[in-house]
């Protein structure tokens, strides 16, 4: 199925769900005032209309798939980023989310160092001490800049 169609269907499902939530809002008691339901209802109606329009809009043509085999018969290895860029991006997002959860439990300093080190390792910094040292330096700089110099508190951990 085409991307526009999938997105349009997701949006329509979202509109129905949010519309249901909107119907549960209370009515207004003021004369002339349209109430808390009115504005979300208008937005949802317009969103539904444009989602239907999007459903019928053709996707933009993508670039042709690059050749896998060279003229001399040599095979070209296509890296993961070229074939599944979304998958790689989602992996990085997942690590970042894990990092945020870690920050919530163990605090900014430890959580961020671990999160940044893993991310650097994932993008090709295979020398672990280098990735760790760089992440630790960045976290330390941010800590001193905000917490120490500007007195802006950083997220503290729930556990310690």
């Amino acid at each position, binding site marked *: 199925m085409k*991307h526009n169609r999938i*997105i349009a269907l997701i949006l329509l499902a979202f509109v129905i769900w*949010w519309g249901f*939530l909107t119907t549960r*809002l*209370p009515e*207004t008691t*003021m*004369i*002339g*005032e*349209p*109430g*808390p339901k*009115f*504005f*979300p209802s208008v*937005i*949802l109606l*317009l*969103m539904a209309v*444009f989602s239907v*329009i*999007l459903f019928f*809009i053709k996707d*933009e043509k993508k670039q042709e798939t690059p050749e896998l085999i060279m003229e001399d018969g040599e095979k070209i290895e296509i*890296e993961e*980023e*070229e074939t599944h860029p*979304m998958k*790689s*991006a989602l992996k*990085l*997002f997942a690590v*970042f*989310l894990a990092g*945020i959860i870690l*920050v*919530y439990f163990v605090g*900014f300093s430890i959580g*961020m160092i671990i999160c*940044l080190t893993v*991310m*650097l390792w*994932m*993008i*090709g910094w295979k020398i672990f001490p280098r990735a760790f040292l760089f*992440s630790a330096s*960045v*976290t330390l*700089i*941010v800590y001193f*800049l*905000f917490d120490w110099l*500007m*007195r*802006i*508190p*950083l*997220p503290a951990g729930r556990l310690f």
Partner: protein
Amino acid sequence: MLEYLSQGLVIALSWENLLFMLFGTILGLVFASIPGLTFSTALILLIPLTFGLEAVPAISVLLGVYAGGMSGGSISAILLGIPGTPSAAATVIDGHEMAKKGEAGRALGMAVYASVFGGIFSLLVLMLVAPQLASVAIKFGPPEIFALVVFGLSTIVSLSGTEVVKGLLAGLFGLLLTTVGLDPVMGLQRFTFDQPGLMVGIGIMPVMIGMFALPEIIDTFLEAKKNKGQQRDDTQNKKVKAAFPTFKEIRKTFVLMVKSSAIGTGLGAIPGTGGPIASFLAYDQARRSEPKCGTGRVEGVGAPEAANNGVTGGALIPLLTLGIPGDSATAIMLGAFLIHGLAPGPLLFQNFGDLVYAIFISILIIYLMVLVIQFFGIRLFVKVLDFPKVNLMIIILAISVVGSFAINLNFSDVIIMFFSGLLGYFMKRYGFPITPLILALVLGYTIEDNFRKSLVFSDGSYSIFVQNPVSLVFLTLALVILLAPFVKPWLQRRFSKKKALQ
């Protein structure tokens, strides 16, 4: 006015303000010099750093990033042929041609001169027009404000580029997000899912940080993974030195500079237009005055640079007087103003006149700083082009977490930042523009609040919006702008059919 000017001068010339302006200007120039990094990201990341500052230094540092960012885009445009910012795209045409001919220094010198010319020109227009416009806008009531903000929001169409439907959907989603939290009139909870963190609504800053910074960070990481080990060869640029335009060049291009700056200021004042359009229109003017443009002429460098820097002062006119941001950068600035207790709009001029004039003077100083730093520090910016983007992005990622947390010291803002970033990444990937969502998020509350207040005043009669000439004009303009992309192709088809029949 003179009283405000003298008070503003004292505030603007304080050492603290000067220091922050300098910092902001350098940061803006650095971010704009590196292709792929936007000064909007720099603006977003600086906001948390300004929390502990007074309003004027905080705004000045952001203005420094804005002006420095607009000007700095020309560096990579000329030296690498890659525009540092979308506004510098037109500068590539002649600027890079000049660099290829070994005249990079002349091109860079002209770019700096034109940027400062355009910036100061737009500042003068801002100083003349803004107070007058504010004195008119102060008389606006809820129906006029509603119509005005709807007009501001209609620029979503022009901010969406070719994907108008997707832009409108993004804008509508942004509006829907503003309905989360307490109802503006009755104070009831809406869509809060019994979460105390959502009672105050979805914060603008965490969404902005997530949407602007995270997709850029993830893309850079993926690119770094793909291009590992590849280095650019910029040895020829390392010895470059900016050469200020000669008196003859200045005299010859003076009229073109004025025209280009006026184009930039005028378009900047119209929400939703911005730098790229202004710079290409100004480039067209350059081609008219110098037919050899395109082969490496200073006119082709000066005109777009004067225009895109003219946009800075122009864009501040609707922002400061009406509270309407015209693009992502001014939307971020609006957020910063609000954080520091300054609500842009006509009352800003009435209640904080001294601060407004301090901001005006700060812009002038910032452009003088741009002149000195970009002209004499060009070798430093050439080195900046070699700085690994991944290292910078790691720093930005860490600041994104702290920045979103520090606004309300609330961890749920970090979660909002993350999911906004994820949404922003999907939007970017599937062609949904981000700026309409941000603009709607910034303006949504004002629209609903003033719409409902207007109806309370009129006892529920919608005629209040058409009886008032000001609101009628703005709503008609908004309708024309919103319908144009749908009606225009239909009219064109009809016209071409008629022509074919004839």
